């Protein structure tokens, strides 16, 4: 008869899955390539498009302003493999016949991916040091901006994980995630709101504007740590993770 397992708690099992996933980024060149490209593009956006030096202001606005667009392409690239790779290689059968609950599997994978993006984001610390050397920025605003950026990255990831659960094909997972994330970004842009203006009621217009990443992210980047903005991202994450779990359950056989 089998030895009684010693630890089968939810957190304990989630932790085991989390560590395996996080390690897998560093087992291949994925982590290195991704970090390099993220830092390179973030640099270009900040210094060339954002005019970091020309503005002559000691803040990181030009750095954070482009994160939604960086994430738009880079986060789906991380998320696309989360479930479609498991389905394609058949390891999903192994994973889901272990005594592991669906929520532990979804959460372990998601948290590992989120932790990885947090590590990449943390690698941008030299620009924080730079701006502190050059002037005296409001470091509270910068902390709030990092928080906003991390929350937004997590939401992109949750969307990408859900889409990844729907297909075995990573290219499809990538493209569909980009489109869904794009819609969440542009919902708040004046051009989109202008399109709806006049033929939908003001309430609907407010809902569209409110559902945008940008509205909530920009508030955080301005240093306004409103609980509602944080809750917005957390509840979106929860929604997409649950949707992902449902998707895995219904699609795993195919």
């Amino acid at each position, binding site marked *: 008869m089998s030895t009684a397992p010693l*630890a089968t708690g939810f957190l304990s099992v989630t932790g085991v899955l989390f560590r395996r996933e996080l*390690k897998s980024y560093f087992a291949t060149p994925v982590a290195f390539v991704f970090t390099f490209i993220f830092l390179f593009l973030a640099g270009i956006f900040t210094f060339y498009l954002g005019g970091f030096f020309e503005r002559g202001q000691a803040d990181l606005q030009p750095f954070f302003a482009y994160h939604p667009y960086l994430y738009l392409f880079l986060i789906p690239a991380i998320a696309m493999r989360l479930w479609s790779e498991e389905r394609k290689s058949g390891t999903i059968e192994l994973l889901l016949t272990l005594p592991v609950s669906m929520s532990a599997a979804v959460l372990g994978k998601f948290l590992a991916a989120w932790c990885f993006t947090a590590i990449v984001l943390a690698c941008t610390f030299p620009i924080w040091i730079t701006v502190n050397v050059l002037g005296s920025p409001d470091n509270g605003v910068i902390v709030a901006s990092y928080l906003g950026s991390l929350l937004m990255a997590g939401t992109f990831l949750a969307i990408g994980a859900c889409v990844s659960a729907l297909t075995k094909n990573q290219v499809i997972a990538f493209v569909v995630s980009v489109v869904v994330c794009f819609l969440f970004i542009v919902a708040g842009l004046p051009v989109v709101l202008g399109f709806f203006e006049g033929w939908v009621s003001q309430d609907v217009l407010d809902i569209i504007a409110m559902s945008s990443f940008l509205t909530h992210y920009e508030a955080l980047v301005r240093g306004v740590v409103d609980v509602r903005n944080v809750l917005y991202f957390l509840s979106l994450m929860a929604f997409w993770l649950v949707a992902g779990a449902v998707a895995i359950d219904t699609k795993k056989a195919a």
Partner: protein
Amino acid sequence: MTAKIEIRDLSKHFGDLKAVDGISFAVEQGEVLGFLGPNGAGKSTTMKMVTGFLPPTAGAISVCGHDMLADPLPAKRLIGYLPEGAPAYPDMTPAEFLDFVAGARGFRGAARQACVDQAVDRVNLDEVLHQRIETLSKGFKRRVGLAQAILHDPPVLILDEPTDGLDPNQKHEVRELIRGMAAGKVIILSTHILEEVAAVCTRAIIIDRGHVVLDETPAALAARGRLDDVFREVTSRDTRAGASA
């Protein structure tokens, strides 16, 4: 507690296709059940349901008294499963992979290392323990899959084509391993190699088009004549019945 698996009226429909259509059987401790049948007969689908991967369309699965459908985690703890093709994470080494499976099964610390060491020892994985799984030969990959299935010494072992793609020596080793573990366990294995049934199984079930068409001991099966002929006879009979229905 003795190990036992009970399956009642198990069905799985994919749209109009009845992959498994009302299968019932029970397997007791000490039995090695060989699951035979043509490709697409429903062998793998049945195993996927018994191990809790696929939810059945109808029917009940009991693993040592635990209901797989109502309360899957206790039932899953008692099962060791080798899925078809022995999938494993290609960027991990067997050592890392087995450590992960042991961790996911709730082993910690010294117990975790001990069960990994024991499994490695039983399937002779020492020489490739620190090579990436993607670089391993088919035989070693299969052994990694077997190792993860047996590392918690489960009372129930379900092996989907455990010897597929192995050379004769490796096949012999795996059969020896299965025979050696049989006494204290329920073992179900699928195969389409007919002589494997005579070599390791104490009982054979032939399924075709989602139905059990034969359930006998290998000796009784042998008494019917050449295994190939019996197989062809019972499976084609059902095919004809299916075609006329």
